[in-house]
């Protein structure tokens, strides 16, 4: 049974930490897109997508992420993700998401690196 998404956004200066629970599939598109659109590109230069433990991604959900990440790149925003299982770390690498986003295990380290991104604080 697919788990529906809930999104919690926390802004830390120029970095937004977006906590996402639930599976990431085609059904996540509207939730993820609208959450992303809520972030002011003038202010937010780094985005951390913090997935809850055990999050499942299907191919459709990965494409949704790719489309959002590509959009973020156009807006000069840096993306990081955390909370991935070992399996999905490999899949993210395999489908090339790692070309758009860095993968972290440690949320604090991710935020620190995003803050150091040019345009960040």
């Amino acid at each position: 049974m697919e788990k529906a998404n809930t999104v919690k956004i926390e802004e830390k200066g120029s970095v937004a930490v977006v906590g996402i629970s639930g599976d990431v599939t085609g059904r996540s598109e509207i939730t993820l897109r609208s959450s992303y659109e809520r972030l002011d590109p003038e202010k937010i230069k780094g985005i951390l997508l913090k997935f809850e433990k055990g999050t499942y991604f299907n191919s459709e959900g990965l494409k949704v992420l790719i489309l959002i990440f590509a959009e973020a790149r156009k807006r000069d925003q840096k993306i990081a993700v955390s909370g991935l299982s070992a399996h999905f770390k490999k899949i993210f690498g395999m489908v090339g998401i790692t070309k758009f986003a860095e993968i972290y295990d440690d949320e604090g380290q991710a935020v620190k690196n995003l803050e150091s991104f040019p345009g960040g604080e």
Partner: protein
Amino acid sequence: MGEPTTNRGSVQEELEKRLFHLKTLYDMSSGLFEKLEINAILRKFLLMTTGNFGVMEGFVFLGEVCSGEITAFICFGFSEDEKSLVLKGAKDLVYRCSGQERVFERGDLGEYGTAFHRITIAVLFNVDDRCRGLVCLGEKITGERYSIEDKDLLVTLGNNLLIAVRNARYAAQLKDAYEEVSSLNRAKDKVIHHLSHELKTPLSLIKASLTLLGRKLAAYPDKSWEKSLRRALKNVDRLMAMQEEVDDIMRGKDVQVYRTLNLLLDECSDQLAVLAENELGKGDVADRIRARIEDLFGPRDQLPERIALNALVAQHLKELRPLFAHREVYVHPRLEPVSPVLMSPDAMGKVVRGLIRNAVENTPEGGMIDVVVEGAQEEVAFVVRDCGVGITKEHQKRIFEGFFPTQETDAYCSGHPFDFNAGGKGADLLRMKIFSERYNFRLQMESERCRHIPGENDVCPGSIALCEHCGKGDDCARSGGTVFKVVFPISEAEMP
């Protein structure tokens, strides 16, 4: 020592990749078939496929072979300017390679325009005889080449798309056909309703004229006209009965004519009464005209009343018996006292008389009919069981559709009511079905075609005495027959 670890790592990675691909295939096969709208199917397919291979650009194109029309086009990763170039190239490829199902690689695609330079792999497929499709994907984000397994997977995913699109096209065709039939059905209803209504007045006038003619001719000694007039009147009656059946079936709630005529009559009834007295010496003309209007145009949707079904059936049976006294059929009533049912007496009368007449007309001479009223805990049933010819399985499916006689028209007898095989237009059962929906009762039918005449065109001789298979009534009864059951729910207040 390092090499085996690397090998284990790459094997593990390959396994995880294949697991992911299998999951995509599973999601594709379940996800696509949830949708029936073609653009939604194509979009889901493209999201899954580009997500699976990690691709930015891709598109799916569907086009009609004959008309050259674009059925659908969904793309990701192209600018608006590029889209039109991609579309042009896609049309070119699909129609140039008409009939082929194949995989194209970058080297094969250069000739289809500059936008195709960003396409690395393409799969061309036939949706059906009229529609062709093309799936194109750009380079992988990782820069890796598409492997043979990738190509196989893309073709398999494309096959899923093909079936989903086919289903969607069939569903769309079915929907269109249903809407067309519904529209034609509404038009047909309108025409029948109009014709039925238009027939009512002229038929009444013809009958009145024939009756008047009969009265005038009665003064002459020569009576040779009587037979012709009777035949004419009988056929006018048949037409009127048919008109009434159609009217019951098609009638809306429009009682405009009735109201208008009554209003006119109210306005001028005094003048009519004076005129009648002066001209005819009869003062009740206005009342008679009013009664005629009531009969012809009056509303016949009666409010449901509490009806003692056993008494009502007994009464109708008593009235009907003289009408089939010329027939040698044996009607056995078993009318138990039951709780009253809520029903329009007019409609109930039509149901009771219709089913009894139907049974008599389908039972050969010497045959038996049971007419039963019985009650169960929460229901009351009126049952008519005939030992007649029965109805073939094929005809049973359509018996309540209306205007569906169960025998060929030319196999009918004289058309006299209650004669064996008297026939009719088959509208009576449709009318009962409509009453059942209007008055909330169940109409059930079980039938077994006489085993001696199993085919639709096999004919019953119409008399057990003439039947070469049945020696007596019991033999005929066992050979086939039909049971109609009308079941009424009893309200809790009426339950014993």
